[in-house]
């Protein structure tokens, strides 16, 4: 959020005002691109050159972003002129780190090849040769997949976004078929709120009158066509024929962009050969079954993250990142040169990318989450999506075969072959899943002799493989989660391979993004079948040992362990996907905001647990009753929304022994909320609450970096008093007065989230509201960390005077912070 926008935001805005200030805002304060330990690579003069962010900023110092509607603001200029943060460590260390990882990749592959050689020479079982060869194939497949993975991540690129040139014309295209209008409204409003001017088009293949009315209401353009030939690609091409912007942005109906999306991406087109800029896909409905979240360990896993945050930057080094269907900007000239978006395929994005590369264009990957979409909410929809992607990508072999397509470089061929090959993973994984169970049931050994000598070789190979894979994957290599992903999808992926090779005609099916339809037994039959097979195999093996039919205790023990692992994967998938995940019509954003709640007993300041435009969950010690009417005042940063609501459910928060009485959770449904208020709540959720939540689970430093940071800041750490994570409403009084929520509290300081980026050293007043009374203190700002993409800040402050003993003694009895419910 720019300071200009912050100021306007602070004045309390209508929706029109909200749009205006976002249109008038120019760039986020924090233009530093922090890339962890990745190598800084930038295209300078058309050639790749490694530069530090500081160098980059100095190179581009004169190139001030000049938006057509830029507002001159001294504070903004001052913010812009701040030096960029230095890179995380020196270029030598970065290079050393990269070289070490590359060395490890080579070492792991060498070990894998040695292992395969040993397997071929000494451990093929002639008594069950077919079975043994099948297992060997699975291992060889995995070796090739690992080699392709290492190739892709050889040198991940972290680009610094160049300033966006002025006066570019941009058309934002939102293809839609039957998506919910409320969903489209969110997307359109966010597109209209872009800081960089752009025209927004609904491309409606559903020919809905109500959507044309919505377009009219919001000020978007509405394009429809008489037929739905070539599905999404056809729809986009139809729009291309009716629009004239130099650049085209594609957003799927559920993708909500940040206002800075264009500013952060358009700069790459200063290179005239860049055809498209892709940004990561990110899902915001973290309650989908696709997420594995451990709030205590601040760990969030989604299978897409590794691809979009790590592999794609790696492919960017080889100029082989691809347009991924949404959240991308494309140069119209490039599209026109290849005849528009690729048709005749169900994955137009990859095929379009291959054609662009083959025609000599370049792609760029900007590794910053600038838009958020919806993950599928049930397994059937998820499988539908996976099937489409797998089929489409495998069909690339028959349409634009990357191995034979003219015009591609060798690395591009390898990368796109890796894209296709990745979808074949279902075959070896199925072999891995069923082999141990079959071995136990039949007595066929895939590896023979399986003796101590082999076990030693295998253990060394396994340690090198797992350790190396984790090390080079920089936190994205999660073997357990990858296995879960494979267990979820193995059957669908095999189905896709079969359909592709049998040349079944594929149809573009829109992935449902609404509330969960629930899971049918047929959807999880492959996993249920596999679990039953594994349990039978385990039990059979145990009985074999019990009746002493076999004397191969080593083989059978390992077989039972391995089968048990596969069974547990199958059960985990069944258990997770059959849970009721998505009762609500729309996702609630997890986050704490201060809310004034007025009922018959008086007015209370409480905090939310989660929020969206339909309702809110509150945590409070006050007792409310079902159906009780409430008047709520939501403090959304500087904005205030007043709304009526009613209690629709109640529960008790998880126990905290120190609390004086149970902490109660109430679900409140909003009543008679105006559309403008809904839009303001939505925008606040997307641009402040969601980034704060995602930041909580952001990729953390490696242990080496953590140690280095600790050493560099050891004095600060030594002085820091023990803090307690609490969620309490507070009021900040300074240049602007606003309510927010405390993240943590200690006798010497406090941390809170602010939409306003305070200066270090600034003095403010804070009043923390507890149910025992208020604590009013003067504070000195010590840290201000911007949360990407720059609309919220984590503020660390020290009390001018140490907290009094009486207040201090209250801390253990305050409302605890739970489940990442952060301000």
């Amino acid at each position: 959020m720019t300071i200009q926008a912050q100021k306007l935001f602070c004045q309390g805005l209508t929706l029109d005002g909200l749009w205006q200030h976002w249109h008038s805002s120019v760039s986020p304060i924090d233009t530093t691109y922090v890339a962890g330990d990745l190598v800084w690579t930038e295209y300078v003069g058309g050639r790749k050159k490694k530069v530090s962010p500081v160098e980059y900023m100095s190179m581009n110092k004169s190139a001030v972003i000049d938006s057509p509607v830029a507002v001159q603001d001294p504070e903004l200029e001052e913010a812009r002129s701040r030096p960029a943060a230095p890179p995380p460590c020196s270029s030598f260390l970065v290079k050393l780190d990269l070289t070490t990882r590359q060395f490890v990749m080579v070492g792991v592959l060498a070990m894998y090849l040695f292992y395969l050689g040993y397997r071929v020479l000494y451990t093929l079982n002639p008594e069950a040769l077919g079975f043994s060869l099948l297992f060997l194939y699975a291992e060889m497949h995995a070796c090739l997949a690992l080699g392709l993975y290492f190739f892709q991540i050889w040198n991940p690129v972290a680009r610094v976004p160049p300033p966006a040139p002025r006066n570019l014309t941009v058309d934002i295209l939102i293809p839609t078929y039957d998506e919910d209008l409320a969903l489209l409204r969110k997307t359109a409003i966010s597109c209209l709120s872009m800081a960089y001017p752009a025209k927004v088009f609904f491309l409606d293949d559903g020919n809905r009158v109500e959507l044309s009315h919505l377009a009219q209401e919001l000020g978007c353009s509405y394009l429809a066509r008489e037929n739905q030939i070539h599905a999404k690609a056809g729809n986009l091409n139809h729009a291309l024929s009716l629009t004239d912007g130099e650049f085209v942005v594609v957003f799927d109906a559920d993708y909500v962009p940040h206002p800075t999306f264009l500013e952060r991406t358009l700069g790459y087109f200063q290179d005239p050969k860049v055809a498209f800029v892709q940004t990561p896909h990110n899902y915001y409905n973290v309650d989908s079954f696709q997420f594995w979240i451990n709030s205590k360990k601040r760990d969030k896993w989604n299978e897409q993250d590794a691809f979009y945050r790590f592999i794609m930057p790696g492919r960017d080094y080889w100029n082989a990142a691809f347009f991924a269907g949404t959240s991308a900007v494309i140069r119209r000239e490039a599209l026109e040169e290849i005849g528009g978006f690729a048709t005749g395929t169900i994955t137009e994005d990859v095929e379009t990318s291959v054609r662009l590369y083959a025609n000599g264009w370049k792609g760029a990957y900007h590794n910053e989450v600038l838009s958020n979409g919806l993950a599928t909410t049930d397994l059937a929809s998820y499988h539908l999506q996976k099937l489409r992607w797998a089929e489409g990508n495998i069909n690339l072999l028959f349409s634009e075969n990357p191995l034979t397509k003219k015009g591609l470089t060798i690395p591009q061929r390898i990368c796109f072959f890796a894209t296709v090959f990745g979808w074949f993973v279902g075959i070896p994984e199925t072999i891995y899943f069923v082999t141990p169970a079959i071995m136990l049931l039949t007595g066929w050994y895939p590896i023979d002799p399986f003796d101590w000598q082999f076990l030693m070789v295998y253990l060394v190979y396994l340690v090198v493989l797992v350790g190396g894979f984790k090390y080079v994957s920089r936190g994205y290599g999660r073997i357990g989660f990858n296995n879960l992903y494979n267990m979820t999808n193995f059957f669908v992926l095999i189905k896709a391979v079969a359909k592709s090779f049998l040349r079944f005609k594929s149809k573009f099916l829109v992935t449902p993004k609404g509330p969960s339809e629930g899971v049918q037994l047929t959807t999880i039959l492959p996993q249920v079948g596999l679990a039953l097979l594994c349990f039978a195999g385990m039990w059979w093996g145990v009985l074999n040992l019990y009746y002493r039919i076999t004397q191969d205790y080593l083989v059978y023990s390992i077989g039972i362990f391995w089968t048990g692992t596969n069974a547990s994967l199958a059960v985990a998938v069944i258990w997770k996907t059959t849970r009721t995940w998505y009762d609500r019509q729309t996702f609630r954003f997890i986050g704490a905001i201060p809310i004034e709640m007025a009922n018959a007993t008086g007015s209370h300041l409480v905090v939310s647990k989660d929020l969206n435009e339909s309702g809110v969950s509150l945590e409070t010690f006050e007792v409310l009753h079902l159906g009780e009417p409430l008047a709520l005042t939501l403090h959304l940063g500087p904005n205030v929304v007043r709304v009526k609501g009613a209690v629709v459910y109640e529960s008790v928060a998880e126990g905290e022994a120190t609390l004086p009485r149970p902490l109660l959770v109430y679900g409140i449904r909003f009543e008679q909320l105006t559309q403008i208020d809904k839009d303001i709540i939505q925008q606040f959720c997307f641009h402040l609450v969601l980034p704060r939540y995602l930041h909580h689970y952001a990729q953390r430093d490696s242990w080496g970096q953590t140690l280095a940071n600790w050493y560099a800041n050891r004095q600060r750490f030594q002085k820091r008093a023990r803090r307690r994570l609490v969620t309490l409403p507070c009021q900040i009084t300074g240049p602007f007065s606003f309510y927010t929520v405390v993240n943590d509290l200690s006798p010497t300081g406090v941390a809170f989230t602010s939409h306003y980026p305070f200066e270090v050293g600034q003095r403010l007043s804070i009043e923390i509201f507890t149910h025992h009374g208020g604590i009013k203190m003067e504070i000195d700002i010590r840290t201000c960390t911007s949360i990407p993409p720059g609309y919220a800040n984590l503020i660390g402050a020290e009390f001018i005077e140490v907290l009094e003993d009486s207040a201090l003694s209250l801390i253990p009895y305050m409302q605890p912070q739970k489940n990442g419910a952060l301000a």
Partner: protein
Amino acid sequence: MMAPAIALLRNRWVLLIGGLVYMGLIWSIFLVVNHQEIVRAELLRSPTSVHKQDVMEMYESLGRQESWVEDDVMLMRLTEALVYQGRGAEARKISQGLLLKNPKDHSLRFQVALALHNAGLYEEAESHFSILLGERGDK
């Protein structure tokens, strides 16, 4: 709304009872499929504890299964079991067959002789002891 089949699948009692039934079913199949293997294993472990009927079944299946004939240790154990159950005639047939196959296996001959002696078939046993002693004397 959870589908009824899924609700059943997630029900702990259904899982517990279903799991037990499933295990029982697998166990039954295992016993049927591996009956002979189980008896063989039992025979190897403790020839005297094998069920009478199982021993006779094994004896009867000797003629049908070549692999049994090759397995000398197993035949030896079967001999012991037959002797223990008072089936001296059958035991003698097997031991004779065994010794015909391995006439110079002194260890085998000694075990056969011992088994016959323990079963009260002293004459049979004596002849084998004599051969053993005679061969030793020759040496």
